[in-house]
């Protein structure tokens, strides 16, 4: 009998915990659905850590409009279904005021409908959701794909004789967008795309695709997609003995970029924001803001790559700026205020939002980086 009562009590306690409503709001809550596990873990963990540092910095200065800022991050496991669950948890139980979620595009798309119905603004690491009514409430901290392409094409044209290129991309939305931009803009930039090959992020060998690109006469591979696939491609190029093939990689975390650079030397290059190569920081405000972030980042994380962390930091600072402009915590007012943020210098880039421009980075923030002497430097 006692056992049965204990079981009933345990179930009741569990259900109560699940249903627990949020308490009265005396803090401004920023929620973040991030892929702490799964394919997006590398970038989203750094994104989260950058955000947490930014919230600490805001609270150290007294918070926002007199309220303490609370940061809530939930793991969406890089899966859309889990993203829907954690978004709902943060909306109905934690009562978050604004979202600053990570780079899992499908997860953000899946939850966007409910977030919009709740009139909660979103500042995202991913690309914007596809529907106009969702775009109205969403802002992106991610640079448009064309900037990555421009940086790589410009460098290739100015520094090499290569005019035939191959494109390799993974199937993620961002990489697919970049592929379309890359193919479309190649002719304008003076290149011929002789092969377009796809791969899965967890493929362990890409010799076949690389072989086809080489056979088509390409002198460089422009790679779109993040993670260990960059290292796999670099190793395969080396194994195939393609001694003149250049590999130009996407924006990524420092770890795979270093590993790929160790394979191919200076034939491996990548697009990098200046905060990833501090020597390239432009004097003035961009340098001051980036160094302020880097100082706090390094104190906490040492040599860890700051790229995604800087974007996470900026996402919180953009929200803080919007709250100050709106002089309010209300979702619709904060949403409207983000559209008024222009010329706002972040640690990663400068942000220019407007009613028509919900992708904040409008100036190309990239340089071409290379691994030299174990350090990232501008090529």
């Amino acid at each position: 009998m006692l056992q049965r009562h204990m079981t009933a009590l345990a179930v009741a306690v569990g259900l109560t915990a699940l249903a627990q409503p949020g308490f009265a709001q005396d803090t401004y809550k920023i929620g973040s659905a991030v892929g702490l596990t799964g394919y997006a873990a590398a970038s989203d963990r750094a994104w989260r850590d950058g955000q947490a540092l930014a919230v600490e910095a805001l609270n150290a200065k007294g918070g926002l409009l007199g309220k303490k800022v609370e940061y809530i991050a939930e793991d969406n496991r890089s899966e859309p279904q889990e993203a829907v669950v954690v978004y709902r948890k943060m909306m109905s139980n934690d009562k978050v005021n604004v979202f600053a979620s990570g780079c899992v595009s499908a997860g953000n798309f899946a939850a966007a409908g409910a977030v919009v119905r709740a009139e909660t603004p979103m500042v995202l690491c991913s690309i914007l959701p596809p529907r106009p009514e969702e775009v109205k409430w969403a802002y992106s901290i991610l640079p448009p794909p064309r900037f990555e392409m421009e940086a790589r094409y410009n460098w290739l044209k100015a520094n090499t004789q290569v005019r035939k290129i191959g494109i390799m991309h993974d199937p993620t939305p961002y990489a697919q967008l970049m592929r379309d931009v890359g193919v479309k803009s190649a002719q304008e930039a003076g290149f011929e795309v002789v092969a377009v090959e796809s791969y899965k992020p967890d493929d362990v060998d890409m010799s076949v695709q690389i072989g086809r690109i080489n056979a088509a006469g390409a002198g460089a591979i422009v790679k779109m997609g993040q993670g260990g696939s960059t290292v796999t491609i670099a190793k395969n190029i080396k194994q195939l003995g393609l001694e003149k093939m250049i590999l130009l990689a996407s924006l990524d975390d420092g770890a795979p970029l270093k590993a790929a650079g160790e394979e191919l030397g200076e034939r491996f290059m990548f697009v990098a924001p200046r905060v990833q190569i501090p020597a390239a920081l432009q004097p003035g405000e961009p340098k001051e803001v980036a160094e302020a972030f880097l100082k706090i980042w390094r104190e906490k994380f040492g040599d860890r790559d700051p790229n995604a962390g800087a974007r996470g930091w900026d996402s919180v600072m953009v929200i803080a700026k919007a709250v100050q402009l709106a002089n309010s915590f209300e979702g619709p007012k904060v949403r409207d205020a983000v559209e008024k943020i222009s010329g706002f210098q972040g640690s990663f880039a400068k942000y220019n939002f407007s009613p028509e421009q919900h992708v904040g980075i409008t100036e190309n923030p990239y340089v071409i980086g290379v691994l030299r002497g174990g350090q990232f430097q501008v090529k």
Partner: protein
Amino acid sequence: MTSPATTSTSRWARGVVLPVAAVLAVMVFALNSSGYVVTVIGFAAIYAIFVTGLNFFMGYTGQASFGQNAFAALGGYGSAILSGNYYWDPLLALVVSMAFAGVVAAIVGYPTLKLRGHYLAMATFALGLITYEISIEWTGLTSGYMGISGIPPLGVGRYELGTEKQMLVALTAFLLLGVWISTRLRDSRFGRALRAIAGSEPAAQALGINVARYKLMAFVVAALYASCAGSLFAHFVGFISPEVFGGAMVIQSFTMLFLGGIGTTWGPVIGALMVLMLPEFLRGLKELQDVVYSCVLVMILIFAPKGLAGLVALIPTRRAPAAPRPAEAK
């Protein structure tokens, strides 16, 4: 001695009334809770439908299928495309997608089900992988990883289930209907044939059961359930992408089936609720969430090897007072 009538009533109460009451209690609890709870229990209802179908093939018939996610994808994308792009009524889109999935299951299952054991498992696994790859690569139809958004909620004509709580009521109705069909079929001639096949295929054959035909029928029924679940997911969330119907779905559904009780009518429902609700109870543990969750699953499998539904059998039945002996009756 318990009279047959008392035993039958007790079994009915334990097998039907208790589970239905439990499901309704969970749903009523959800309807009085936050959107978060509605979402979690809504997903549990959808998975319960999926696993109830899988139970036909794996539980009742004793076969292995690692590819039911393929039919969930057919249902999900069918509903998304028909109702999102061509403005069909969601319910009609769901039914047509189910019919399509059933036809595909019959066509694919006819040659595939000639295989047995591990070979059948590998063939069905390949089916799931192929469908997953198609959903990624056929971007003109599925939009690949970009997914399809703006899928309308369930509804007929001008009536639309506008809120998640209304959707949850509909999901509960679908679930109870699915379990009722499963119960009825399990105790029918068809269900007995399936259980005979699960016991021994040669023995079933010797008894005159057309093993290949019944296996195919179980496969098709499982596909219909899977397609229905896929469609319901699409209408519940309003968005689908290939990851929804990937390998994680297979692993989760297997966990639900074995944890709840394979071959039992209510096991899939219990398993789905357990597998989707337990991680939420443990969410506060942060990094330790997965560790504790896995430990709890292992403990359940050790101490309840027949699944959680098997524990119901341990509940003592209240016996009716013995009938008075003729000598005592005055």
